[in-house]
């Protein structure tokens, strides 16, 4: 296990990035022909930072996240995590997916969290205690003994977040975790994740296509453009949490413009 950066230490200037995505190119082989999904992406994330990947569908934001998670291998460039070149999926980069079926249906809420801890080396008692703590943190105590099919979509995503946080990962990779939720549940979970991240200073890489979500949750936003995918701009949005503030509105306009320019090129992207 590599040494972990202290999670509270986020204000110094001469620090190493926790994650460096360095001129990464990602492609899929389709019939022995390489289809480029991400042409050139570079950005760095520092410990405790919340980095948003914002872009239209087809801009390769999920692809980048999957490469950081280790599910895809870049065909060019490097991904370095805490000094190591990331190759394989490991629980030090815990992923929260958009799909509701990411929970093990045959395990209860509590066991979904506890199993993940057991299988990553915690002993049984510690796993149970930790699971209980994170379930309580996500407000799931009353549902601890339920099976996933008995939960609403929002609760399922809470369990997935609890499971990922309980692993005490170097960073949390969230792949549009609220993308399938109704607006109300969505904004509630956004607020909760915001609170938790403020409290724990967990490092987050968060994929979204919502400008509002990017501004509300993020410290910085990597704006991706489509066809072929590349990084358009990296915008600092750390001050813009309040949707009514002038800064929020200015930044929102800026991000809209960035995405709209891109939209004119491809004609099909949809934003809120």
């Amino acid at each position: 296990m590599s040494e972990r950066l202290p999670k509270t230490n986020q204000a110094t200037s001469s620090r190493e990035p926790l994650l460096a995505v360095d001129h990464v190119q990602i492609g899929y082989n389709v019939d022995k022909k390489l289809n480029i999904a991400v042409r050139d992406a570079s950005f760095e994330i520092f410990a405790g930072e919340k980095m948003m990947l914002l872009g239209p569908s087809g801009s390769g934001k999920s692809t980048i996240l999957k490469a950081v998670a280790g599910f895809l291998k870049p065909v060019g460039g490097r991904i370095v995590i805490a000094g190591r070149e990331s190759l394989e999926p490991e629980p030090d980069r815990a992923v929260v997916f958009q799909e509701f079926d990411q929970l093990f249906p045959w395990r209860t809420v509590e066991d979904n969290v506890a199993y993940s801890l057991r299988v990553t080396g915690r002993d049984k008692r510690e796993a149970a205690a930790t699971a209980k703590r994170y379930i309580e943190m996500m407000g799931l105590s009353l549902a601890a003994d339920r099976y996933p099919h008995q939960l609403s979509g929002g609760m399922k995503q809470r369990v997935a977040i609890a499971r990922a946080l309980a692993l005490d990962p170097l960073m949390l990779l969230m792949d549009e975790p609220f993308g399938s939720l109704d607006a109300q549940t969505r904004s509630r979970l956004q607020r909760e994740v915001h609170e938790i991240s403020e409290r724990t200073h967990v490092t987050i890489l968060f994929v979204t296509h919502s400008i509002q979500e990017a501004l509300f949750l993020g410290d910085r936003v990597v704006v991706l453009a489509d066809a072929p995918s590349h990084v358009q701009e990296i915008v600092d949005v750390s001050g813009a949490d309040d949707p009514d503030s002038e800064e929020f509105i200015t930044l929102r306009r800026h991000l809209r413009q960035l995405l709209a320019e891109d939209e004119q090129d491809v004609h099909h992207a949809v934003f809120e």
Partner: protein
Amino acid sequence: MVFVGIWQAYVSLFDVSPLLVASPLDVGDSFIAGWTSGELASATLLTLKILGMGMAFGMTAAAVFTTVATWTRIGEDVLVLLTSMLNPLPSIAILPLAILWFGLSSTALVVVIANAVTWPIAINLSMGFRTVPSTLLMVGRNLGLRGARMVKDVLMPAALPHIISGVKTGWAFGWRTIIAAELVFGVAGGGGGLGFFINESRYFLRVPDVFAGLVTIALIGIALETLFNLIEKKTVIKWGMKGEAETDTTPARSQ
């Protein structure tokens, strides 16, 4: 109950020849006598033993085939070819061949049963493996699960609804096949299982015994069906992986 009443009334009132239809009371007597004397019990046990061995071989073969098929391209092609060739073939049809190869022994029966159960189980298992949500597989990989651990902790439980329905279909095929095979064996002079018991009783005109054998077959069928339903209720239905109203869609096959 009503059915048994009508049956008894029919036999008592219409003076049916006891050589054609036995009355329920006689069948009951034969059933109890057969089980207490151990004749019916030993025949049933033998049948179940051969069925169990055939099922064990068939399930192992299905698991091996399916695992190879899931991991290799050529394995998948071979499995598709074999299942599409052998699954529609009534498994009793290979009995003459099995007798030719293995003689009038229980080995021949085990081979026939194994063939009967392998393909429905393999079809269901490979369907089960292929329909595991990709998200769930990624979650497993994210947790560092690889190889055997992945199969045991993610693939198997995720494919459980298909596994159960595969074993259910496999058992039903195997059960039909073994009774049929034993009837043939009885004619050929070997054996000693339930099918043989029925055939022999017919030969000696012990009609109540014929019925008692049939009742035994039916009861075992019902018992196993109940067992499978119970297993499903305690697992896949409880976990919401299979709806309560969902019925078995595996097409029936005549023997």
